[in-house]
């Protein structure tokens, strides 16, 4: 079962080229949704205006080589390792869902375009691993980690528009797994799977799907502002600097340990 291409039987029953046409349509829906989202909210316009303003205030020029190094750091730390999360559980759940989603989408495209109606080596196994990884991260987040459940005390079963992305993703993947488990085919399960997938990709303008495009841009901008000295106007002085250790205000910390441990962050924020 884990080695069989679940799309092969369905593609034999469906009109030729249907699945390829459907995947193309979903890619177009994502592109249209992201463009609409950016235009409607004017987020890109605001982002670039803010970036220009920040650069004008910069204390030093950031060169091309440095920009490349910042881009590489953003890609490795903020994107590939989800470094922005301070909550370890959220970070792990995000990594599981993100990598699961990438593997799931890539293997779906490979099975549909490269192995239509034929068994595909390893790819179906990866499809299963990706889908299970999405379910593990997604359901963990949905039931236990969500801020309005963990910090606001709301019921984990309460549905809001903010849930459109995670719920349509989980519905699509869960239905896909059940459909594949039952051997594929073109019955009602397949229709439900397609419906949930359509909601996921066609709902980009109303869901937080587009965060995968603008979050890396925001993380890059944050690093550039640190490099050019503006640091989003945040203080940059720290106790590690020997000059700062001489300050009158640092008198009391002269003999104190370098690491004071965690204070309020020792406990998860769930004292609503």
């Amino acid at each position, binding site marked *: 079962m884990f080695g069989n291409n679940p799309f092969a039987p369905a593609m034999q029953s469906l009109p030729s080229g249907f699945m390829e046409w459907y995947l193309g349509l979903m890619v177009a829906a994502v592109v249209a949704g992201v463009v609409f989202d950016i235009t409607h909210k004017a987020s890109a316009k605001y982002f670039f205006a803010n970036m220009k303003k920040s650069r004008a205030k910069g204390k030093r020029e950031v060169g091309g080589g440095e920009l490349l190094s910042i881009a590489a750091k953003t890609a490795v730390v903020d994107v590939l390792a989800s470094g922005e999360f301070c909550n370890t559980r959220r970070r792990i759940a995000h990594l599981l869902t993100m990598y699961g989603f990438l593997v799931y989408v890539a293997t779906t495209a490979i099975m549909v375009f490269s192995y239509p109606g034929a068994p595909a080596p390893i790819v179906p196994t990866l499809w299963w691993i990706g889908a299970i990884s999405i379910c593990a991260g997604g359901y963990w987040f949905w039931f236990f980690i969500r801020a309005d459940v963990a910090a*606001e005390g709301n019921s984990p079963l309460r549905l809001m528009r903010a849930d459109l992305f995670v719920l349509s993703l989980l519905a699509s993947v869960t239905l896909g797994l059940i459909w594949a488990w039952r051997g594929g085919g073109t019955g009602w399960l397949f229709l439900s799977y397609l419906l949930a997938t359509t909601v996921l990709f066609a709902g980009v303008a109303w869901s937080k799907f587009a965060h995968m495009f603008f979050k890396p841009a925001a993380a890059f901008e944050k690093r550039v502002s640190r490099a050019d000295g503006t640091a*989003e106007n945040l203080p940059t002085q720290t106790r590690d600097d020997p000059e700062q250790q001489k300050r009158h205000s640092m008198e*009391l910390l002269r003999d104190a340990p*370098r690491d004071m441990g965690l204070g309020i962050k020792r406990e998860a924020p769930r004292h609503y």
Partner: protein
Amino acid sequence: MPTFVYMTRCDGCGHCVDICPSDIMHIDETTRRAYNIEPNMCWECYSCVKACPQHAIDVRGYADFAPLGHSVRVDRDEQKGTIAWKIMFRDGREKNFLSPITTKPWGTAIPKLADVPAPSQEVRDSQLLYSEPKYIRLDEGGLRTLKDAGLKLKKGVYY
């Protein structure tokens, strides 16, 4: 001015919801990001601004220390035991402050009140508070002053 949240920086972790003494920082039901539900009730205590790990919450400072067009930002680094402030004035001037927020590792100096003997009637009737005068060191030769500690009052800092 009350607090406001930079939505692209907030990751909805809930630290501000947890710490707000007015209980007015909540998670938005649509975007799942924090926001101030009742700005009129905000005391501008800066608790959420300091607690936010993403520096996603900001407040416009009071006009008496930073007139319009300024920026007041804070970085509370509890592992280093410090808090840093940076005020940027509209004419480009900058003021930086760095102060301790603890002098001992967190959680190591919590009084064990259960082990302390109950106060006598004489102590109850006294004007002194718990641990006085010991912890304000009045019993070690009077009130502690800057002079005792070998410090000087800096001109322009206190007025």
